[in-house]
């Protein structure tokens, strides 16, 4: 894990960020780690157009899918690729693209996969004037696929207002019961004095 490797990864990884306009995809196939590429190819092979590989680094893969397909792909990942639990569910607000990205960091306790993290990202429509739960900011819940996302999705709901359909328990988790403001992790929620 020396830092030279990190640097090479940095140079070698292919990263498309939401804010960037330059989609200069210079694929340096040689620098890509082999095992991770195979994993990504398995996904590409099965789903083809439905998924988009964001980047492949050492031990890290990020794939981007549409929200209609996420349950299907997640089921495939959990059953066939043995990623058995979710480490984190992160919601990221992009006001300029008018969407909220939700990233599932999926990990595995299988011996050969245990250093891998597969980030499965999807995005929901963002409303400028949110009413959490009853607006268009909705995503299908992965709770039936990965049992461990239950609390993470609850947290994502209250922090960003992303309602997870078919989630059994979409209640508030961390915020006070009388929270009446917009969800706090949205970018238009300003904290004191900033």
């Amino acid at each position, binding site marked *: 894990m020396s830092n030279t490797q990190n640097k090479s990864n940095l140079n070698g990884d292919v990263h498309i960020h939401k804010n960037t306009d330059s989609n200069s995809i210079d694929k340096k196939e040689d620098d890509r780690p082999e095992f991770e590429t195979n994993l990504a190819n398995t996904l590409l092979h099965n789903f083809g157009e439905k998924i988009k590989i964001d980047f492949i680094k050492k031990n890290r893969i990020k794939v981007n899918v549409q929200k209609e397909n996420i349950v299907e792909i997640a089921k495939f990942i959990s059953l066939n690729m043995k990623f058995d639990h979710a480490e984190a569910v992160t919601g990221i607000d992009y006001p300029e693209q008018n969407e909220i990205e939700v990233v599932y960091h999926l990990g595995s306790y299988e011996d050969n996969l245990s250093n891998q993290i597969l980030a499965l990202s999807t995005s929901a429509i963002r409303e400028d004037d949110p009413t959490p739960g009853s607006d268009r900011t909705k995503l299908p819940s992965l709770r039936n696929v990965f049992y461990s996302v239950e609390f993470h999705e609850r947290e994502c709901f209250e922090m960003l207002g992303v309602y997870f359909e078919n989630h059994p328990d979409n209640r508030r988790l961390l*915020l*006070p*019961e009388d929270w009446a403001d917009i969800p*706090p992790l949205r970018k238009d*929620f300003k*904290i*004191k*004095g900033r």
Partner: protein
Amino acid sequence: MLKDLVMPQNANVFVSKLGDILVKAIDQPLGYAINWGRIWSLWPVHIETACCSVEFGAASGPRYDVERFGIIEAFGSLRQCDLVVVQGTITRKMAPRLRLVYDQMPDPKYVIAMGACAITGGLYFDSYNVLPGIDGVLPVDVYVPGCPPRPETLIQGCMLLQEKIKCMKAR
């Protein structure tokens, strides 16, 4: 004249005079004694609010041992306690509960605000869910600064509270 004095409506004058005498006779020594008792028997209520509780736990541990001052390790029911040590940040979810705990405790009760977060909000001055200090929630007796305060500082705060109780009028 005498008949006027023993009229029932004047009886309360006698009672109050007697009361004054009794207060003068009993209040002072008893007040001293009771204040002395309160100084050496400050039982903290078991309420942790944030990360300063780690140092509070360390303060009741073997090296610092607040039991030397009669402050036993936080225990049991709040009905028997008389000291709230607000151990750090008070969030908006916690504040009503903290007030509820304070209201349920029997008089006399004292409050120590432990840590910068409990005093002004500290590091979290701009957080959306943190109260800027607990002055709006509880009447604070002693502020113990630090983030988190060392156990020695907490002990010093307790000793300051003891000094303060000494100067209080016992009820």
